[in-house]
């Protein structure tokens, strides 16, 4: 066990996989010599050689396309998209190719690729370094989408993603890279060193895709969330004294429906929290599933606490970000309904 922040945990996951599996290779913008603008691949080229870890042209579509071709050959490429905002030039390759290759070839070819990208806001990144595009991936049949909320999960999930034989979009809430941000931007920064999930095994381990984690058991209301919002919700619940059950989805698609519905059947109330904008966000799918599966258990309308349906406005970050105040009031509305 070593104390790691999320960057170090991700780095360790890739290091372990480069060591274990000669078909694993890593490329992306600035990931080689420099080690990535967030340092997630720092030292990996130096350790494993530039054949295994190298810089790519600024062409996200080309990066994903090359990875698919490598995957079809038999390699297991892990590519970094510098910001999730910049995954869109690769969207056609992800949707029309990566996600369909196995299906249309009836299993002759597949794309065991992992596409890592830092996502989310809270870092003063403005419109194009703050987005949370996960919902659009969850609409695509054949893609898996993952978002860890702490170093321990990050490493275990990334290893599982790399070993997965299907394409995985692996979104990393960059606001959590250095510490468990609870949404109180006016308070001192927290660090992972004080957090139990900042203790990370040095070796190989997996956290299976498709399994949510109940990060706080509770009886009164279910909170479904993921990424940075896990910590915002935890802090909010701790502060406001509502006995909420907080579920960190971890894998956004396919959902861990059993864990989710079991919780809701128990509590009868639900708040969904995500940073992404509301309309057709992942919260919509969750609410749609739950109102159908747990209709007779529901005691209040399911509330969504989300980013507004606007681009991410740089100077109004804290009015946009669904912070503790908004989570708390949603919880109260749901409890009072």
């Amino acid at each position, binding site marked *: 066990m070593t104390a790691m922040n999320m960057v170090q945990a991700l780095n360790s996951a890739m290091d372990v996989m480069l060591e274990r599996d000669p078909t694993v*290779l890593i490329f992306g913008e600035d990931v080689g010599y420099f080690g990535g603008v967030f340092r997630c691949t720092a030292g990996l080229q130096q350790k494993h050689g530039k*054949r295994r870890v190298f810089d790519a*042209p600024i*062409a996200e*579509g*080309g990066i994903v*396309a*090359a*990875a*698919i*071709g*490598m*995957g*079809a*050959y*038999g*390699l297991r*490429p892990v590519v970094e998209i510098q910001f999730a905002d910049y995954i869109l*030039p690769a969207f*056609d*390759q992800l949707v*029309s*190719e990566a996600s*369909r*290759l*196995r*299906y*249309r*070839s*009836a*299993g*002759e*070819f*597949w794309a065991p690729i992992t596409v890592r990208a830092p996502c989310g806001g809270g870092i003063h990144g403005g419109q194009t370094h703050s987005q949370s595009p996960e919902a659009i991936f969850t609409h695509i*049949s*054949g893609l*898996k989408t993952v978002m860890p909320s702490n170093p321990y999960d990050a490493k275990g999930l990334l290893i599982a993603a790399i070993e*997965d*034989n*299907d394409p995985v979009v692996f979104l990393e809430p960059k606001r959590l890279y250095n510490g468990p941000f609870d949404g109180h931007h006016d308070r001192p920064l927290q660090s992972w060193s004080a957090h139990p999930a900042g203790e990370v095994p040095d070796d190989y381990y997996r956290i299976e895709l*498709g399994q949510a984690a109940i990060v706080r058991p509770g009886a009164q209301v279910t909170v479904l969330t993921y990424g940075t919002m896990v910590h915002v919700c935890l802090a909010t619940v701790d502060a406001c004294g509502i006995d909420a059950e907080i579920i960190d989805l971890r894998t956004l698609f*396919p*959902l861990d*429906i*059993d864990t989710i519905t079991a919780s809701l059947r128990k509590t009868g109330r639900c708040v969904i929290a995500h940073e992404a904008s509301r309309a057709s966000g992942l919260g919509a799918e969750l609410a749609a599933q739950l109102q159908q599966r747990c209709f007779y258990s529901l005691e209040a309308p399911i509330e969504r606490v989300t980013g507004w349906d606007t681009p991410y406005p740089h100077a109004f970050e804290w009015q946009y970000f669904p912070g503790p105040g908004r989570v708390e009031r949603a919880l109260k509305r749901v409890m009072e309904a």
Partner: protein
Amino acid sequence: MPGHSTRGLQAPLQLHIPEPSARPGEAPDFSGLVILPAGTVARPDVHAPAAALRELPFQLIRVLDDDGHAVGDWNPHLPAETLRAGLRAMMLTRALDERMVRLQRQGKTSFYIKSSGEEAIGVAQAFALQRDDMCFPSYRQQGLLIARDWPIVDLICQIFNNRKDRLKGRQLPILYSCREAGFYSLSGNVGTRFPHAVGWAMASAYSGDTRIAAAWIGDGTSAEGDFHYALTFASVYRAPVILNVVNNQWAISTFQGIAGGDEATFASRAVGYGLPGLRVDGNDFLAVYAATRWAAERARSNGGATLIELYTYRAAAHSTSDDPSKYRPQDEAAHWPLGDPVERLKQHLIGLGAWSEERHAALAETLDEEVRAAVREAESHGTLGTPPADPETMFDDVFEHVPWHLREQRDEMKAEGL
């Protein structure tokens, strides 16, 4: 200085919209094409630096002259046996295409795409590659599969989407996938697999393998971003790949000028990436073979990628959904100055004394019968409308393992009795 304007004196700008040389009702007009005699283009060393080859993509590599003689540096000097095998594969490709279009008209399949006039491309290129080199074709290189002796009955079963369709009815007719024949899965999206070939080739190089990749894209499709990605990655990482642009003059109803072909050759796109660009008479079996061989040798010796423009003409409709008489002169194909690939190879073989009209006619008949037999066999497994597989298989292969939501939906479908 900024701010200083001379607007009043300036003539207005105009938008230029390119137009083909002839439209329906007009006489076909290929007078704009400058086609130099066969044998005039020098063949550089396969290790020549790309910088020494910058004028090559503006020339046209031709081996077979107007009398059917093989001339010049690029003549690959293939044995007659190989030429006859190539002719046979082209003729089989054509026979299959003809028969399938008829069956489409008879309603036995919903859709088909012919490669008429372009048979030399898939076939000669398959001959120039090794059998385990990996091909990333577009939908008009069925010749690759035929040249690699892939059983046509397997293709027809896919076209019929019948019980023996290995793709389980999931794909439109002709969107094959034949891993064993080194033929990558096709998709309806044009262009998207072009950069996969580069990734595959990089993977082969990464692995210290000896296999190279080849990819095909249409003149029209070269405008997609995927084309640029492929050339960029191929150049940067010196990937062992042959990138082919099949310039058959048309993209459905749109002539090649709308993809930029009036301003420069497609082969010359190579220049800006520091790659060799070869422009080849695509209806000349020997030239196509020779150019591909050159590029393959270069790639195999770690010399990196080559861009090849195969200059040809789409002699048939775009697909069975298309009627080209709506947008180009009906008889344009007949006026194509580079002739027909089958006819040209046939004449060459006859000139060599290694073939005859009689043998040709007999072969054509044999191949037609071969196709008919394959159709009969395929039909015994069903045609359009025959369920290709259990509908439940629809939920397989979305992921490696069927997840809960698809199991649930599969059950829902069964419960609905669908």
